[in-house]
């Protein structure tokens, strides 16, 4: 195999004679990771979302230095005051500064929301993909675990356990929330994996001698990524809200500490009269979930080469030759297969 003559026979792709900017420069410049990253950076929505999330973090952790007020200390001279120069977001019934409280709550909710979503998605994808891929006893054992956790009244267990874990603080709380949040996702991932396992490209990898865990990480998970990402972005909002529900019952975040959830719970009833108690916290939560969704959408499109991001990509600089074709070839084979399916549908 030392003779590397370019095949003259083939007409389909004119083989470039020598100019190989790819191989000549950095080796492996064209891996999937880099392509996905480049696509992600080209997606405006994802960038905006990421920027907003970063700004929220900056606000949550840097904001308290901007205000003289502490989230817990009441200012008895100002009860139920609307926003002013003194108290930027106003004060609540006992005179606590809403700005300071909101920031404090934001700190908690950002961390809880993102961590719970991340942990539960990772857990779900690993368990689901392993159960689906390996089948047999692994599948039965893992699915038994999933079903067991599903029938457990999660709320009850968290209430019982969290009182014992008081000393461990919020991180135990995050773990508990994640632990009861992943089962349905895992079931879906499992069924998607079962259908993927029979696909030829997975089979091909197996016959090439690729190890099972590598197949899962390289082939299975990227192909269920769209679902995982959407599920994770929804889980972010869900985690913040279930933290709220628990806090409402007195578990999780305890007074005088606050989270966005407790602020919302407290402010809901007063919203018509004292809107500042409710709307600042609610607005920040909505902004947070929206930004995470934007990032998720961008990531999903970046991972899915057939997504609508293709035209935007072709506008980018440094496309391989015939940039005018790249868009068409994206539609070309699709177009023909579409007419194929048209043929077969009746």
């Amino acid at each position, binding site marked *: 195999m030392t003779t590397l003559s370019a095949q003259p026979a083939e007409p389909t792709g004119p*083989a470039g004679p020598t100019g190989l*900017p790819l191989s000549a420069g950095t080796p492996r410049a*064209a891996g999937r990771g880099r392509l996905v990253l480049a696509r992600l950076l080209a997606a405006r929505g994802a960038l905006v979302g990421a920027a907003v999330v970063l700004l929220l973090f900056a606000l949550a952790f840097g904001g308290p230095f901007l205000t003289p007020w502490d989230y817990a200390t009441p200012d008895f001279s100002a009860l139920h005051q609307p926003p002013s120069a003194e108290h930027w977001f106003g004060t609540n019934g006992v005179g606590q500064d809403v700005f300071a409280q909101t920031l404090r709550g934001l700190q908690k909710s950002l961390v809880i929301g993102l961590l719970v979503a991340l942990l539960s998605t990772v857990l779900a994808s690993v368990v689901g993909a392993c159960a689906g891929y390996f089948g047999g006893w692994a599948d039965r054992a893992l699915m038994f675990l999933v079903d067991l956790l599903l029938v457990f009244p999660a709320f009850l267990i968290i209430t019982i356990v969290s009182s014992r874990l008081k000393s461990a603080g919020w991180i135990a709380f995050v773990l508990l929330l994640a632990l009861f949040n992943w089962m349905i996702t895992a079931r879906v991932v499992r069924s998607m994996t079962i259908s993927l396992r029979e696909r030829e490209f997975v089979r091909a990898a197996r016959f090439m*001698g690729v*190890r099972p865990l590598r197949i899962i990480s390289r082939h299975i998970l990227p192909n269920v990524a769209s679902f995982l990402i959407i599920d994770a972005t929804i889980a972010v909002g869900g985690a913040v809200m279930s933290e709220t529900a628990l806090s409402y019952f007195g578990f999780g975040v305890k007074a005088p500490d606050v989270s966005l959830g407790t602020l919302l719970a407290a402010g809901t009833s007063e919203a018509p009269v004292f809107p500042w108690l409710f709307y600042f916290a609610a607005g920040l939560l909505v902004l947070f979930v929206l930004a995470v969704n934007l990032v998720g959408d961008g990531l999903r499109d970046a991972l899915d080469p057939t997504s609508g991001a293709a035209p935007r990509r072709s506008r980018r600089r440094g496309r391989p030759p015939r940039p005018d074709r790249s868009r068409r070839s994206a539609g070309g*084979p699709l177009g023909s297969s579409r007419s194929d399916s*048209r043929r077969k549908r009746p």
Partner: protein
Amino acid sequence: MTTTVETPLLAVRDLRVDFAGPHGPVPAVRGVDLTLRRGETLGIVGESGSGKSVTALSVLGLLPGTARVSGSVRLDGRELVGLPGKELAAIRGRRVAMVFQDPLSAFTPVYRIGDQIAEAVRVHQRVDKATARRRAAELLDLVGIPAPDRALDSFPHEFSGGMRQRAMIAMAVANEPDILLADEPTTALDVTIQAQVLDVLRTARRETGAALVLVSHDLGVIAGTADRVAVMYAGRVVETAGVDELFAAPHHPYSLGLIGALPRLDGRGGPLVPIPGAPAPMAELPPGCPFAARCPLAEERCSVSEPVLEGPDDHLSACVRSAELAERRPAPAEVYPLPELPAASAPGDRADLAPVLAVSGLGKTFPLLKGTVFKRKVGEVYAVDGVDLDLREGETLGLVGESGSGKSTTLFELLRLGAPETGRIELLGHDTAKLTRAEAHRLRGELQIVFQDPMASLDPRMPIGDIIAEPLLAQRSPRAEIARRVPELLRQVGLDPDHAVRYPHQFSGGQRQRVSIARALAVRPRLLVLDEPVSALDVSIQAGVLNLLQALKAELGLSYLFVSHDLSVIRHLADRVSVMYLGRTVEQGEVSAVFDRPRHPYTRALLSAVPFPDPAAERARDRILLAGDPPSPTERRTGCPFRTRCPRYTALTTPADRTRCEQERPALTGGPPGTDHQAACHHPEGPPADGHAK
């Protein structure tokens, strides 16, 4: 048409169909003219995306709502385009009936076959239920379904693919229509079943006197069935002529290329003539002739305006140089540039070559399970039951068989690199039953596979550079080596190395199959398993891939195990062939010996069922039609498994001979000494005439 005076039965004039696309309407049919006379068979042939099926569907107004149809379709002078649904419904099934490609989805699974056919009768005729049922039984009898009265009460899933397609034809002719539209009626079927169904179509046509429009991508099917042929390309008819004329002297370079690209069963015929390039995308067709970009005869004027369909008499063609072609009558190879293929190695003594793969007596059964909670075994499927293979270095072994013959199971047993259930697999000198894990992993590098469907076998979420690098990674090659190898491999299979960053969906089918081949070659294997590598590709693309495979084999000294149901492809590519029936090897040997002098009756029937792309030869051939379908592999019969369908067995006269077929399993026995040709039959055909080994 100037030759006919009567009004044609069906006249399609300037038919145009557009589909709504994301960037504006995409044309599918761009001005098609067709004429169908009474009782005639018109073949419409073209590659996928050429608009042939859309043309057929638009005749009956069966296109989805996103399609915009203009032009005229006249049935006996009555305009059908734009007719309200109610009036069209009266014509559908009654005057024009349709036979669809996929017989599985064409029947409602929850109703009995008889009820569905009776319904078709009662929709158009005022008869009571009993009469309709009787008529349905008659129809099933007409299409050759055994025991029609019982078949009426069967559900569609109880029928095999061939039976379903027969029932579909029965339903289509239920109201004695004037026109039968058959849209790829045999594409999903095996060759022997295809031969049966085509025969049924001919019978149905003869019985009802209907005209037949046969849409197919298979030139062989068209050659054997049609009276006239219309060749479609990019939504237009590019040539139409009588079937003999078209195949003898095509006036359009595309038709010429199609004929040249087809591997033929009757001879090796050197390299195939691939049509360069891929079909132009319908969404952005260039001005001028849509074929100009791929045409070796293209001139400047070709890209200016689209040529009209014209010509002498009945032979019309849409090419500016058709007169020239008509006069010169060139062979495809004279017009299309021929790829240079290295000469095949001189046939030496096989025994000197190192064995690559030796399989003997391979068997594999699957348990049939019943019950939901406690699964118990109620039987076994004998998927593979005695397969022998012998492949030497630098050879191509073709593995032929119909669906259900155990080809794929055999392959997966080989690729599993484990101990087989029964029998013995020896791969490159290693007995697979005795491999350690590390040895098996190393052996995986020597053995690679190319799958049938190039879309499914490439991970849609991986750029092809990573896809090709995967086997290298699995064999733990250093990164620098991978970076060097990927562009080299892409060039080797005729792709642009810069395309390594593209994703599979950005390539056409043929290019994707090249990526698959590049991936398989990455670790420098010695044996390549090709599982129907070209059956998902169009003829013109298939030729290019087959030529590539031949060139690679000569260049790299590979051995191929080539699995296919297409005997013409096997004949073209393989050195030796092995024929499987019901999990057993029934005949094997040197390819020309097996194909020219088949000894097993199954091989004979298989060969005679393959349609030739040559109308005269096709009509002159006598066909051996096998009765029925292959029996179920769930029971292991004593004796010869083929005897239920064997024409030779039925012709046997002495009871002793019959008993032998019924009770004794035929072993693979050699033919004349010195030849490489064995068959598993007690009464093989051809010389030497004495089937009974003394």
